[in-house]
């Protein structure tokens, strides 16, 4: 029992676990793009709901932090609401939905539209951290390929995309080369967000089921893989947000009725609300 009378330590995890995870985080930050194994714990939520991200967040939170949690850009979806409440209860930290006010942001599959600044930490929930997994099923072999920087196979996948679809059809979990060394899966963010991986903030990636952590320190050089004659293009739906009119944000398509009516709205709810409060429409 902790000093404040709660039946758990600050931010749910015990101090030993948090120290173990912080060690893995430091190693991951020291070698950007490297997948660092860690002793992933059982969390009071099912695998696939962000157990990795929650453990990383719990390990970096301090009592002074302001936490924001998003799920596909939105602050008000089940996963985001329950993780935010989890930390409000177990750590007693302040929470917010405003990107600019948050010091720690846990995210499932988006990077906020508002540019992140120095001092902020973005924590990703990662389902499968191994970019080579669907090309090479053997873990022993993928580790060897990372060690020797043998990444030709990654381009085989992109080649296959172009051969089949006429363009690189990978739209999310788009592989990147970190500092010219490790190929990394940036978690299933849309490739629209890939350019934002070069950030002023610290980006931490936690995969709970796979027990891996990887990280990008601020200002890391991150290149999206591509061919010379088929360069990388960050894709977004051709449209503008029906609520705030933004023409440069990542859009979700929403059905409005059962007669085929549909609109596009910003995937980042905070970005959209801030614009609307500022008078844009």
């Amino acid at each position, binding site marked *: 029992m902790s000093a404040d009378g709660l039946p758990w330590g600050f931010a749910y995890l015990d101090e030993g676990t948090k120290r173990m995870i912080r060690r893995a985080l430091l190693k991951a930050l020291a070698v950007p793009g490297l997948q660092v194994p860690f002793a992933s714990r059982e969390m009071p939520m099912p695998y696939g709901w962000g157990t990795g991200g929650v453990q990383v967040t719990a390990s970096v939170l301090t009592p002074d932090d302001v936490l924001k949690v998003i799920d596909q850009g939105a602050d008000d979806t089940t996963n985001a609401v329950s993780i935010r409440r989890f930390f409000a209860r177990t750590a007693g930290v302040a929470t917010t939905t405003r990107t600019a006010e948050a010091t720690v942001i846990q995210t499932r599959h988006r990077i906020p539209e508002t540019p992140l600044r120095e001092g902020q930490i973005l924590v990703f929930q990662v389902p499968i951290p191994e970019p080579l997994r669907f090309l090479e099923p053997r873990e022993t072999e993928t580790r060897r390929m990372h060690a020797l920087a043998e990444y030709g*196979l990654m381009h085989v996948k992109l080649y296959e995309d172009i051969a089949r679809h006429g363009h690189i059809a990978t739209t999310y979990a788009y592989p990147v080369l970190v500092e010219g060394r490790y190929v990394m899966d940036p978690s299933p963010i849309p490739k629209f967000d890939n350019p934002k991986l070069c950030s002023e903030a610290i980006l931490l990636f936690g995969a709970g089921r796979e027990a891996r952590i990887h990280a990008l320190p601020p200002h890391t050089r991150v290149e999206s893989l591509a061919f010379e004659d088929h360069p990388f293009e960050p894709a977004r739906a051709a449209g503008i947000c029906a609520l705030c009119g933004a023409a440069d944000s990542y859009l979700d398509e929403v059905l409005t009725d059962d007669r085929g009516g549909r609109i596009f709205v910003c995937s980042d709810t905070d970005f959209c609300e801030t614009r609307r409060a500022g008078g844009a429409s």
Partner: protein
Amino acid sequence: MTPLLEVRNLTRRYGARTGCEGVGFDLWPGEVLGIVGESGSGKTTLLNCLAGLLPPDGGEAWFDTREAGPRDVFRMPEGERRRLARTDWAFVRQNPRDGLRLNVSAGANVGERLMAVGARHYGAIRAEAARWLERVEIDPARIDDRPSTFSGGMQQRLQIARNLVTRPRLVLMDEPTGGLDVSVQARLLDLLRGLVRDLGLAVVIVTHDLAVVRLLAHRVMVMKDGRVVEEGLTDRVLDDPRHPYTQLLVSSVLAA
């Protein structure tokens, strides 16, 4: 002139049993060496050791690298050996499904080695893949088809194209005609003979089929119980076998 590959005293044991023992040979540029012997005589063990798939228990294999001259491949750092394996070496397996990626197109299969050595221009990779498909007598129109839709003979030819695309100097082949019917075998052998001559390949070909050796190999090595029992020019060994085992092997071939 130095041999392309100098193998000395290569030994591999499986516990108390012997895979191959004290095998040595020289392979010169452009030369085709056949290795024959019955099942279990250590042919495939020898080839797998050379290809880096099995660690040998002893011995040396000096390969004349382009950059640094003769190097012992068994004592090379792993990264270097793997780089060699996908540039200057090729390994054609008996079962093409082991040597191909069945879930990507024929073009990607041929292009993989190019991309592995740094090719990053889609159009150029594709054009080179199409050229190689044509060269191994596969219709280039099938460049986007998966190898699983190919016949056995086509798969084997695709595997050969995929291996030769980086212009290797040394090709290791493990029963390349095994499991194919005779007319397809004949076409494949014809193709191989042409490629070996045109590209000046040095080849180590393992087979139990003496006809394959007769057609392709300049020299032949006969193995029994993991040891080399006889070696020499192909015609000499097949027409005038000296070792009792070779005599048995040659006399067991049924005349068609």
